[in-house]
C-alpha cells in the first residue's frame, strides 16, 4: 500500500502549499481554581467528584488499609490480585486469584468476583483515577472484566486537574505504557439521555484513598 501512502501524503502536501506550520507546542491554560488550592481541599474535591459518578469512596489510614480491604468481600469471593500488589493487601482478600501460573483467559476473568489494584494518578477536578498498568495495577483486562473494581489511590497521587495528570503520565506513555482513565463505574446515557451506571465495565467502582507515601507496588 505504499502507493496509497505516497498518494495521501502528496495530496496533503499540495493542499497545504499555502500554510506555514507552527513548530512550538501549544501551552494550554490552567482552568481549575483547584490548581492553586491547598492539598486538603484538593482531596476533598477528589472524594466529592468520584462520588458524584456513583462510585464508592472511603478514606482509610495506611495501617488499617489491609484490615479494611478484608471487610469489603463476602467469604469465599474470588478476587484477582495483580502482580506487584503489596503482600498484605493480597493476603486480605478471601480467595486470591493470581496470574503466577500464566495469564487468565477472558472466561476465567469473567468468573471472578472482583479485582484489587493500585493506581498511578487521581484527578480531583474530574473525579478520575488513571492506571498506567505498571506493577500492582495489572494488565488492562484485569480491571475490566470482573464486575467490581477496588482501587487503592494514595493521597500524594491525587492532582488538581487534567494538565497535571498529563504531565505526571507523560513518562509512562513515552515508555509505551497503555493508560486507562476511569471516572466512576461504566455508564451509558444512550436511552433517552437517562444515565445508567453499570454496563460492560465493572458495575461497581470502590476507591480507597490512603494517606501519602505508604502504599506502593512491590517488585
Amino acid at each position, binding site marked *: *500500500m505504499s502507493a496509497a501512502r505516497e*498518494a*495521501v*501524503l502528496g*495530496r*496533503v502536501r*499540495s*493542499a497545504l502549499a*499555502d*500554510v506555514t*506550520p*507552527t513548530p512550538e*507546542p*501549544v501551552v*494550554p*491554560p490552567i*482552568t*481549575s*481554581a483547584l490548581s*492553586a488550592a491547598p492539598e486538603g481541599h484538593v482531596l476533598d474535591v477528589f472524594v466529592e467528584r468520584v462520588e458524584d459518578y456513583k462510585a464508592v469512596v472511603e478514606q482509610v489510614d495506611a495501617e488499617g488499609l489491609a484490615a479494611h480491604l478484608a471487610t469489603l468481600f463476602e467469604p469465599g469471593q474470588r478476587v484477582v490480585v495483580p502482580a506487584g500488589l503489596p503482600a498484605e493487601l493480597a493476603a486480605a482478600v478471601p480467595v486470591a486469584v493470581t496470574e503466577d501460573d500464566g495469564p487468565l483467559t*477472558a472466561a476465567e476473568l*469473567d468468573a471472578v468476583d472482583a479485582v484489587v489494584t493500585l493506581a498511578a494518578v487521581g*484527578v480531583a*477536578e474530574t*473525579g478520575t483515577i488513571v492506571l498506567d498498568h505498571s506493577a500492582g495495577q495489572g*494488565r*488492562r*483486562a484485569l480491571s*475490566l472484566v470482573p464486575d467490581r473494581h477496588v482501587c487503592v489511590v494514595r493521597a500524594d497521587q491525587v492532582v488538581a*486537574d*487534567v494538565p497535571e495528570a*498529563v*504531565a505526571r503520565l*507523560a513518562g509512562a*506513555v*513515552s515508555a*509505551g*505504557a*497503555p*493508560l*486507562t*482513565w*476511569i*471516572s*466512576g463505574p*461504566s*455508564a*451509558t*446515557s*444512550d*436511552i*433517552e*439521555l*437517562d444515565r*445508567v451506571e*453499570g*454496563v*460492560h*465495565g*465493572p458495575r461497581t467502582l470502590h476507591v480507597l484513598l490512603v494517606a501519602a507515601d505508604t502504599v506502593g507496588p512491590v517488585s
Partner: protein
Amino acid sequence: MSGTFVGMPVFPTAARAALGDTQLRHNLAHATGVIRAKRAKLVDEVEAAHAAGAPGGWEDLRLAGAAVKQRALDDLAGQLELLEESLTKAGAVVHWARDAAEANAIVARVAKSHGADEVVKVKSMVTQEIGLNEALEAEGIAAWETDLAELIVQLADDLPSHILVPAIHRNRAEVREIFLRRMKDVGRPAPADLTDEPKVLAAAAREHLREKFLRAKVGVSGANFAVAETGTLVVVESEGNGRMCLTLPEVLVSVVGIEKVVPTFAELDPLLRLLPRSSTGERMNPYTSTWSGVTPGDGPQEVHVVLLDNGRTNALADQVGRQALRCIRCSACLNVCPVYERAGGHAYGSVYPGPIGAILNPLLKGTGEKQTDSLPYASSLCGACFEACPVRIDIPEVLVHLRTKVVDGHRGDFPPKAEAVAMKGAAWAFSDASRLGLVEKASGLSGRVLGRLSKSAFPGGRPTAGRLAGPAVAWTGARDLPAPPAESFRQWWARTDGGTRPDSTATPSSTTTEGETR
C-alpha cells in the same frame, strides 16, 4: 446489518417528512434539551473557577483546543510521517488508505488472515463513514456493534441520527421492542420479562454482548486522537465496550482519519478537558483508553492502524473549509442547532448530521451532487453552533462559503435557476438610476395593490404580500414577505426635498411604519 444513507432525498424533502413525525420531535426535543443543560452547567463551572481568580476560562480552553488541532493540520504531512514512525516503533502495522474501499479491504484482509468470521466494534464514526460493516458482511464477516446505541440501531436495521447518541430518535419503549424482537436472531436473546427501564435494557445489552466480547478474536475501532510523538491512540467512551474491544481480542485494527493527529501527548490535555464537557456534559467520560502499538503481555499482540484519507485532503485544500477538520466529533453543535432539534439526524442523509455534517459532507465529497448541495442550506445561520464548538470551527462562515460553491457550480446552467434570473434582474435594475426608477414605480404600484388585498400584517401594521406565484412560491410558503412600500425613498426625497418641505400628502396605509421611522 444497519441500512445505509445511499439514495437519501435532499434535505428539505427529508426534513419535511421528519417534521411530520411527532414522536421523533418529542424524543429529539427532550434529548437535546437534557444534554444542552448538562453542557451549559459545566461550561459555567469552568467559567466560575476563572472568575475566582484562576487563569483561563472556557474561551481560553477553546482557543487552546483549536490551536492544538490547527497546529497538527498545518503540518499534517510531517505529523503523519512521525505518527507512522512512532507506531511502527511501538510494534503496530501501519496501513494507508486513499478511500473507503481501500480501508475496508485492509480490515477484511486482516480479519480473514486470522480466520475470523466476526469482529467486535467500538463505536466509531469513521467506520460508519466508509460503510465497513456492509463491506465486511459482503466478505462473510459479521461486524458486531457493541455501543448500546449502535446496537439498537444495528438490531433495528436503522440508521444513526446523532454523532454521540445514534439512537436519540428512539424512546425506551421502542428500544424494548427492538431487543425482544431481534436479539434472539444474532445471539443471546433478551430476557422474556424485559421492561422498558433504561437500567434493565442496559443489563440486557450487557448479557447479550458479553459472550461476543469473550470469544472475539478481532476487534475494530476508530480513534478520537492519535498522538504523533508517541504513536498513542486514544479512545474516549462510557460503557466499557470500548475497553473490551481494545483489550480482549488477539488482533486490533483501528481505522483513523488522517485529521485525528495531535502532535504531542501534552497537547491532548485541552482536548481531554473540552471533549467530555462538550459531548456528554460530563467533567470526564467514564473511560478513556490510550495505547501505543503492542504492549507485551497486555491486550492485542497484533495491532494494525489504517490511516484514511477518504476526502479529507479535499477538505484540507479548501482554505475556508479546512477548519472543519479540527472537529473532534463531540456533537455539541447538533444539540444547540434549532434545525437539527426539529428535523433530526436522518434528514441530513449522512453519518455526520447537524451543522458539522452540513459542512463536512460537502467538504469531503465535494459539491455538485443534489443531496450534498442541499446541506449548506440546512441552516438559519444563527451561529449557535460556532459558539458551542469546543475547537472554534466557524460553521456559519463555512456554510456561506459552501453555498457560494454550490451556486458557482450552476453558473452556466440552461435553463438558469429562478434565483439566478432574479439576481440578473436585480443587477440590471441597480446598475442604472433610470432603470431603478422604473422598477420603483412598478414596485410602488404593486405595493398599493398588494397592501389593499393583504389579509395579514406584521407587528406595527405593515401588510404582508401574501403568497407569491411562480418560482417564488416555495420561498413564501414558510415566510412572510412585506408588501413593497407604495413610495420609494427616492420618490419621497424628491417630493419633500429631503424632508424640508412639509409632508402634506397623505401616504397610503402601507407605509405607516416607514413614516414613523423617518
